[in-house]
């Protein structure tokens, strides 16, 4: 019987979108059965349009910047878009997969993607905003799989 990986994806920024999809797609390649439960801001990662994913240097002192930049400057309009643009360029230059590509690889590998119904209601999201092939469920749905999993991580 194959091993099982249960992930919770709770963050919706471009940088934090990577860990769940990288781990899930790799585990699937290693013949794991994988489920990702998307909750709160993580739900953004299931939207049809991933173009809104951004990265913010604000409040993240570990983010490498070309020049030292105080928080006061980082909060200026346009800084977030600029940081996002720079990050996307780096991703391309370094041969790192796009989130869309990794998500597609997960879908191809039959990774089960579950959207937290409570968060969908909370944020007034519509089911048609999300990609096809996902399921909707709650915490008990997560534990049904996670309780039998070999690895379980919260991202």
């Amino acid at each position, binding site marked *: 019987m194959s091993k099982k990986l249960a992930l919770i994806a709770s963050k919706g920024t471009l940088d934090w979108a990577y860990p769940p999809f*990288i781990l899930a*797609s*790799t585990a699937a*390649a*290693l*013949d794991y059965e994988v489920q990702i439960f998307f909750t709160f801001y993580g739900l953004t990662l299931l939207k049809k349009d991933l173009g809104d994913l951004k990265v913010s240097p604000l409040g993240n002192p570990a983010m490498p910047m070309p020049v030292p930049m105080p928080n006061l400057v980082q909060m200026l309009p346009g800084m977030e878009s600029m940081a996002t643009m720079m990050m996307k360029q780096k991703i391309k230059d*370094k*041969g*790192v*997969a796009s989130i869309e590509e990794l998500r597609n*690889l997960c879908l191809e590998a039959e990774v089960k993607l579950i959207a937290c119904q409570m968060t969908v209601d909370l944020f007034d999201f519509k089911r048609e905003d999300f990609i096809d092939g996902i399921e909707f469920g709650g915490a008990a749905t997560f534990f049904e799989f996670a309780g039998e999993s070999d690895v379980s991580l919260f991202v």
Partner: protein
Amino acid sequence: MEFDKELDARGLNCPLPILRCKKALAEISAGKVLKIVATDAGSVKDFQAFCKQTGNELLSFSEGGGEYTFFMRKRA
């Protein structure tokens, strides 16, 4: 070394070389040999780990000119 299929994973970063390798293995039959060329330095350890966990056999590994070449035999 002789091989049945070649995968060019140059310029790709983690986890793409592994994911492409998995796909390429699916396209050959058991016992056949896949040659992989990668530039990701992390792939050296990753392919070893991949083989250990999936039962595919890493026949050889060599390095030269910033490229890493692997020969992998698909498990029965």
